[in-house]
Structures are given as structure tokens and as C-alpha cells.
């Protein structure tokens, strides 16, 4: 059986996951679980989704070999180009799936949380395409540092609400989206942006992102003649990482999920419950959730998807972390050596590759370039003092 089989009946991967939501939301989660299972098994739904992925999102995304940077590092470095999807990141895979499903369930409205704004933009895009109403919650700190994406969402017809509670970043945007959903559950679908939250979200979102791993495996074999030695992705909630890992979970490939040093939930390995799931969580001695700190808004999250906690606990994947300084270097390095500006989130994965390259000499390394860096340019101008 695959290491990425379905979760247990209670929505658990090992001892992680579950459904820790207010009673009000239990029927909605049950309904979603049943609707997803039914749709995923329905060839008509799958064909509709595949059609959108091909003709709207631009799939399959290609592999690009980085000969310049790979040569410099002494490895064979290949990028999975999720940055070339419509809306600029992998987030569109999940959002098209959920929006189609929501519509099938008769929901008229989407709510979403967003950190860097990539999931918010993807949600706003799907809502525009499918004629749905959409409201995106975004931490006030992130609204400031990702002004471009805020404007994109508004342009796409969505309402964006800045969240001023708590740390005013991604975790608080999730809280506010859940509060909205508690009040509007009869007409609204919560379009959750990562492999987190209550069951069935971690499972469902992973299934929608499996396409990344499926394509990447076939493409790797064609380009490299084999699966890669190492597969690397950044991890906030962990959706792009789970997507690419899914293609190689039962292979010999080493799987590496890179967290920001200021949001290293897996390294701390302390289980907690927030946002509907039991998973590794940054918390203080009383169980208060701590604020993550990262240069990238998309990884500024104190928890992690439960399946990552599971993969870490069974030692199938490893979760190192990198500092903001290493990320800033990696961001510029890819731009200068390969002509590709990565999202700050993905620069985390590259930063680890740069650090670990001396121990990976001659190996093939596949990195998920999950988003493009245009959104980060203004912030980086400040950081670099340009």
C-alpha cells in the first residue's frame, strides 16, 4: 500500500489530523467529505477539472534544468515550474478543484485566507471564472507587504478584508475565515489554501495537488532517466511540498521540506491543536500558539499540515529550516544565474539546496518552484536597500 493512502475514518495520518471544529461546522465538514469522495470518483468531475487545468491553468507545468546554478553547486538541479501556472503559483490546482466542488455542492460564495496573497489571488480567479462571490481574509501585516496581490484580488472582483487581530498574519487570517464560515456555512464554502485544517481538507487539498507529483515523476524519468535522488520544496502549511512528494513517496527519493527558521513547527516536534487539526505546532508552555516570523508571508505560519507531521514522525521526509538571510541570498542567486525570479517561499527550498550541496555532489535534485517572485519584488527592494 502507498505511504500516501487515504487517512483513517477519523481523518488521521498516524496520530495527526482529525476534525477539531465547533459543532456548527461538523455537518459541513461531513458533507464536504462525502461530496469530495463522490466527485473524485466521478469521471465527469475529473474530466471537467482536467480540462480547466489544461486549458486555463496551463498544465502540465514543465521541468527546467538549471545548468548554470547546478554546475556551480556540483549537482544536477531541476525545477518543477509551478510558477508558470496561471496566477503564478501551484495554488490554482487546489482552488479550481475546490471551486468546482463548491459549485457542484450548490454553494454560491467562497471565503479564503491568504498569507502572501497567492491563494487569495487563485481563489479570486476561480470565483471570477465560475461566477461565484469571494471574500479573502488577509493579515494586516501581509496586506502591507503584498499590496500588489491585494490589488489583483480586488481587480478580480473579490472583497479583501485586512485582519487586525493577533499577529495580523496568516494564522489570524485563518481564524477570521473560520469565523466567517461559522456564520455563513449554509451558503458558503471555505476554500482553504493548504493541506491543513479539519478533515477532509488536508486529504482533499493533497489530492488536488497530486498532479504536481504525477507530472514531475514522469518528467524526471524522461529527463533524468530515473526518479531524482532528492526532492525539495518549501513548507508553510505544506501544500506544494505534499503535491510534489506524492509523486515520489513510494520511491527511493529523499524528501526534504524546508521551513523558515522563524516558523519551524516540525523541528520543534510539539503536537498541538489549532485550526481544526492536531499537528506539530509552535506554542508556549501553556499551549498558546506562538507567532511565526518569516520574510515570506506565505510561510509565516506556526503550524504545518498533519500529513507532514506524520511523514516526519515516521522519518520518511525531513524538515530542515533556513534563515531569512540565506533566503535573501538564494532569491538573488536564482535570478542572476538562471534568469528566474522565485517567490520568497521557494527561495527557502533553494537556500537549503545551496547549503546542502557539498553533501549532495553529483546527485539529481528536483525542486518545486511553486511560485514566481514578482509579488516579492517591492519588498525585496526595501530589504536590499535599492
Amino acid at each position: 500500500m502507498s505511504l500516501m493512502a487515504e487517512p483513517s475514518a477519523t481523518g488521521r495520518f498516524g496520530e495527526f489530523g482529525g476534525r477539531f471544529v465547533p459543532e456548527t461546522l461538523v455537518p459541513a465538514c461531513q458533507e464536504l467529505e462525502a461530496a469530495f469522495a463522490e466527485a473524485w470518483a466521478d469521471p465527469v468531475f475529473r474530466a471537467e477539472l482536467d480540462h480547466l487545468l489544461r486549458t486555463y491553468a496551463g498544465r502540465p507545468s514543465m521541468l527546467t534544468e538549471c545548468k548554470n546554478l547546478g554546475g556551480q553547486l556540483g549537482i544536477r538541479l531541476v525545477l518543477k515550474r509551478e510558477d508558470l501556472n496561471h496566477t503564478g503559483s501551484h495554488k490554482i490546482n487546489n482552488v479550481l478543484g475546490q471551486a468546482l466542488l463548491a459549485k457542484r455542492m450548490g454553494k454560491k460564495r467562497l471565503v479564503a485566507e491568504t498569507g502572501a496573497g497567492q491563494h487569495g489571488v487563485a481563489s479570486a480567479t476561480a470565483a471570477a471564472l465560475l461566477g461565484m462571490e469571494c471574500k479573502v481574509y488577509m493579515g494586516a501585516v501581509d496586506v502591507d507587504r503584498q499590496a500588489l496581490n491585494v490589488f489583483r484580488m480586488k481587480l478580480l472582483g473579490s472583497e479583501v478584508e485586512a485582519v487586525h487581530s493577533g499577529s495580523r498574519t496568516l494564522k489570524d487570517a485563518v481564524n477570521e475565515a473560520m469565523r466567517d464560515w461559522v456564520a455563513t456555512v449554509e451558503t458558503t464554502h471555505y476554500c482553504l489554501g493548504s493541506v491543513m485544517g479539519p478533515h477532509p481538507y488536508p486529504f482533499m487539498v493533497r489530492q488536488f495537488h497530486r498532479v504536481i507529483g504525477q507530472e514531475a515523476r514522469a518528467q524526471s524519468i524522461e529527463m533524468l532517466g530515473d526518479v531524482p535522488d532528492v526532492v525539495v520544496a518549501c513548507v508553510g502549511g505544506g501544500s506544494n511540498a505534499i503535491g510534489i512528494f506524492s509523486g515520489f513517496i513510494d520511491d527511493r527519493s529523499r524528501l526534504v521540506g524546508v521551513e523558515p527558521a522563524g516558523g519551524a513547527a516540525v523541528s520543534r516536534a510539539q503536537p498541538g491543536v489549532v485550526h481544526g487539526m492536531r499537528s506539530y505546532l509552535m506554542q508556549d508552555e501553556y499551549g498558546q500558539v506562538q507567532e511565526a516570523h518569516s520574510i515570506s508571508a506565505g510561510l509565516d505560519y506556526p503550524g504545518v499540515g498533519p500529513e507532514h507531521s506524520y511523514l516526519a514522525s515516521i522519518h520518511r521526509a525531513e524538515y530542515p529550516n533556513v534563515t531569512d538571510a540565506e533566503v535573501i541570498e538564494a532569491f538573488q542567486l536564482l535570478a542572476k544565474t538562471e534568469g528566474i525570479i522565485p517567490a520568497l517561499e521557494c527561495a527557502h527550498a533553494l537556500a537549503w539546496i545551496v547549503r546542502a550541496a557539498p553533501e549532495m555532489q553529483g546527485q539529481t535534485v528536483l525542486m518545486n518552484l511553486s511560485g514566481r517572485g514578482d509579488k516579492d519584488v517591492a519588498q525585496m527592494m526595501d530589504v536590499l536597500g535599492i
Partner: protein
Amino acid sequence: MTGMLETEFRAKRATGRKLLVPYVTGGLQGWQDAVRAVVAAGADAVEIGIPFSDPVMDGPVIQLASQRALDQGATPISILQEVRGLDVQVPLAVMLYYNTVHHAGHERFAASLRDAGVVACIVPDLPLEESGPWCEAADAAGIETVMLAAPTAPDDRLPRVCARARGFVYSVGLLGVTGERTALADTATALARRLKAVTDVPVLVGVGVSNAEQAVEATRVADGVVMGASVVRRILEGGPEAAGDYVAQVRAALDAESA
């Protein structure tokens, strides 16, 4: 075995009294005086909130109070220590989010509640399916776990929720988070009526019961009300005394109605 809270609520209900449970955010400046004030004003029990960093079932007022308490250094341990000094003659319940329990450990946390003199516990992000381990530990320590029932629950779910409820059943008054509303939602009495049809455990409506008039309206069907945001707002704006005056007003309205 029926616990102290449920025994007392059943006895009071039998006399025709409508049950009134104000909510006070623990750790907030002056919170102990607020508890004493609402008890003096006729509360039948008090629900003490243990603040959490991510209170997803709470609206702006209780979020603000929780944040303030946390900023002032409140912890579950400091609040439970202060509970011991309250010396009030009504049952005390705590409302907290599940990670507070999960982090401390079920048995350990249940024991710390019992040692502090708390008799019941409300965990709004712990639905029936996930409640087993906590309820077992709470039962063993003699802590009554109040279960919430939501307006979205299908008919076959309500009896199962009620069967697991100790103390009382918390009938969620509306689709949404805690906070004051201009009118009592239709769902409030509708759900309370559905619950009364399937259980003998006292049914109290909470979330969105915002003034004396709405409390009276809710208790035409339910056995009582939990009042949160409207009490906490008065503590924030006018201190313990303002909360006491308000609860006295609600008490009088409930008593006038049931007289």
C-alpha cells in the same frame, strides 16, 4: 452519577427558576470582582473564560478581553489559582479551547480544574467525535463536560450530543461567533425546542443572547441562558459593578417572567 452542576440546575429548574450563567473572561483586570458581582446579582453559575491565542468561536468583544488578559500575563495556571480565592456559592465552569487541555494533558488538566474547585468545562472546538479522551478524563475527575449543540446539527445528532452532555446542554443560539445582536435569532428558540424534545438535561441558550429581553425570549423555551459578550463588554467599559448591575437587570426580568 449526576454531577453538582447538573444536580443544582435540575433542582432550580424544578422550582420554576430560569437559569442565568454569565461569562467572565478570566485574567482580565478586576475579573474576580466581576465574578463576585454577577453572583451577588443572581447568577446561578459562572462561566470563566480561559483566554486562548486563537479563539475561533469568539467575536470582537471576547477576543479583545482575551487578548487584554493575555497581555496582562494571564495563564491557565494563574487563573485557576485565582479561582481558588473566589469563595462564591455557585458552581463555577470554565470555557477554554482544546489546545489548553491537550497541551497540559487530559488527566493533569482535569485534576487541576478539580483542585481549583471548578465543576464543569466547556470546550467549543471539541466536537462530539473528538471528545472521547477528554470526556473520559473529565468524568474520572468529576468534571462535568458541557456539550454544545449547533443549529446545523441534523436530528439524529442531537440525542447523541445530549447523551454525552454533563451539567447542561449548551444550545448555540445562532450561526456565528459570540457577540451581541440586535435581535434573538430564530434559530435560538428553534434549536432549544428541538433539544428539549430529546433530552431531560437542562438546556441553556448561549451565543447571541444580548439583553434582558432576549434572555426572556430564549427562556420561554430553554431552561436558561449563557450571556457572554454583553457581560464582558460591560466589564471592559464600566468595570465589575457595571457587569453586576446588568446581570441584576437580566435576573429581575427572568424572575418577573417566571413568577
